[in-house]
């Protein structure tokens, strides 16, 4: 199903920066970018957050929708992707380009400012509208910004959302409803998620330390990540940054918020992604882990990776750089993986030492040059929702 999907555009924005070069340079240099939570809101507890820097003026007219926080977060990636989408529209026609968007919280932050106004925060932007609350609040505006007119769809499966969107996009191409699809994700910080993860005891009091011996939770972040995928042709091959080689999805069927102790859903979806890519575990050069930094999540993922790969495969956790961008987490890691294929180096997991040796996985704790062809990226979420994607440097048939 996923054979021959070229990635012809990629954009990312998060606490590391609001444009690809800045995000990539800081990610691969291992630069810390988290802020105290008080930079966002006076929470009655301590934690760190990944806050998007202010957007610089770009000279275009932005998104024609309410200027909510999530619209701003999305815009940072959307405006970077516009040239690639415009080129695809010339290739295929605007009606043949679909848009699939994913988010976990959508416009919830705008709702908060309306329903729970706080004098320390700006008030809701220009009058509250229910349409600004939903996951799809920015969808029509983004499609108009790109000038595309194909099918428009929104998905939300918590932290696996963006990979579920990628799978839906692949189906649209496979069944002839589109020749190219913009797959995007954005989640802004909002008070509900910070209070919520704190209530579950899952927030790290300081910067997250995935797979470290003393790991103690998540650092939330806001961010967006977008890719443009296209049917594989001679023309698109000339533009490709990488290829979606295979995707897999599975449910834990264990608990709504706690992972299966053996990472069973994770095992199933990693194996499925490998099968669909026509690859074996030995073909994968490293795993970009979901790696949230909680004790249970990292343990379960390490078990799953160990069972699938049966060797200490290099594993890195980009949430140590970007924070956990929730619905955008999968695509954020995917875009960094595409860049790692271009640079031929693996980004480091920050603060991973001392590593939890009981996990039995080979954490990449420093920037590591390597010969890279295939990377497997994980995105797991509430509801036992698991998805994996294999991204490759070259198309399968070559």
């Amino acid at each position: 199903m996923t054979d021959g999907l070229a990635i012809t555009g990629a954009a990312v924005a998060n606490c590391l920066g609001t444009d690809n070069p800045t995000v990539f340079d800081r990610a691969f240099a291992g630069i810390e970018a988290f802020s105290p939570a008080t930079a966002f809101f006076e929470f009655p507890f301590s934690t760190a957050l990944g806050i998007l820097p202010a957007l610089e003026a770009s000279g275009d007219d932005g998104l024609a929708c309410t200027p909510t926080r999530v619209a701003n977060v999305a815009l940072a990636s959307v405006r970077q992707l516009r040239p690639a989408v415009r080129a695809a529209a010339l290739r295929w026609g605007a009606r043949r380009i679909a848009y699939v968007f994913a988010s976990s919280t959508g416009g919830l932050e705008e709702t908060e400012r309306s329903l729970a106004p706080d004098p320390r925060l700006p008030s809701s932007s220009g009058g509250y509208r229910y349409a600004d609350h939903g996951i799809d609040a920015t969808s029509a505006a983004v499609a108009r910004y790109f000038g595309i007119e194909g099918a428009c769809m929104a998905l939300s499966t918590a932290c696996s959302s963006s990979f579920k969107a990628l799978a839906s996009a692949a189906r649209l191409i496979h069944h002839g409803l589109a020749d190219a699809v913009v797959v995007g994700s954005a989640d802004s910080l909002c008070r509900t998620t910070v209070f919520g993860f704190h209530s579950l005891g899952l927030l790290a009091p300081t910067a997250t330390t995935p797979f470290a011996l003393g790991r103690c939770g998540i650092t939330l972040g806001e961010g967006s990540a977008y890719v443009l995928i296209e049917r594989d042709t001679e023309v698109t091959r000339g533009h490709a940054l990488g290829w979606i080689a295979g995707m897999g999805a599975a449910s834990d069927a264990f608990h709504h918020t706690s992972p299966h102790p053996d990472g069973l859903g994770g095992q199933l979806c990693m194996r499925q992604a490998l099968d669909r890519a026509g690859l074996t575990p030995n073909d994968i050069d490293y795993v970009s882990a979901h790696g949230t930094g909680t004790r249970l999540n990292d343990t379960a993922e390490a078990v799953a990776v160990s069972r699938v790969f049966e060797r200490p495969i290099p594993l890195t956790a980009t949430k140590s750089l970007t924070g956990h961008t929730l619905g955008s987490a999968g695509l954020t890691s995917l875009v960094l993986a595409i860049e790692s294929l271009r640079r031929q180096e693996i980004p480091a997991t920050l603060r991973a030492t001392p590593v939890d040796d009981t996990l039995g996985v080979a954490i990449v704790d420093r920037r590591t040059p390597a010969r890279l062809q295939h990377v497997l990226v994980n995105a797991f979420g509430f509801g036992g929702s698991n998805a994996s994607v294999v991204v490759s440097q070259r198309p399968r048939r070559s």
Partner: protein
Amino acid sequence: MTPVASVQLLGASFFSTHHASAHDAVAGRQRDVTAPAFKLLVARARRFTSLATQLHLEVCGALPVDAAEPPITVFATCHGEIQTAETLVADFHTNAMVSSARFALSVHNTPSGLYSVATGSHAPSTTVTGANAIAMGWLEAALTALDAGRTVLLSIADEPVPAVFQGPTEPAGVAAAFLLAPASATGRRAQLVTTPSTDDLDLPTLLVLARAVDAWTREEPATIALGALHPGARLELRLP
């Protein structure tokens, strides 16, 4: 009219808090407000579940599925866990804290997760949302059935939007589930087609779902507008 996908429809179920059946909903006959029984969940797991989740689980539980090969699931909802969102926002605003149990069940894929736990299914699941969630849920389910070559359980549900959101005013909680299979399976053929459409009117969820299930139950031919596919075109369900 452009064909998009053709699948077999193996079953359908319907629940409305205000109507005893899909046929009654189509006819506009109301009943006393009735809560879902959602027997799929055991007592401990029922706590803190929203009406939206209960509605999904009610209609999913009404359709027999093969436990040996559980269906892939596609959940669709325009508004998601909107009542839970209101409660969480009010809680942190008033008390500077939120309920961990309520937060855990606040994500759009809450019904998906609880269904997979209740049935022990490791099958993939996704959740489609937004203003055109009914149309795109059908599309996602049909394409998934064709791709995977196996049955797909499509569940569509929405609870009333609290007045504070100043959103839609539909008073009933409503849900429908459909069991879809690849075109090679036995069942009743269901076609998804696109047709030109110049109106952007939101279709009332209650009537869209009730018409589809009523047509299935009565074995009558029907064409049901599901919602926008893209500007200028809408998706229709055709039951020949």
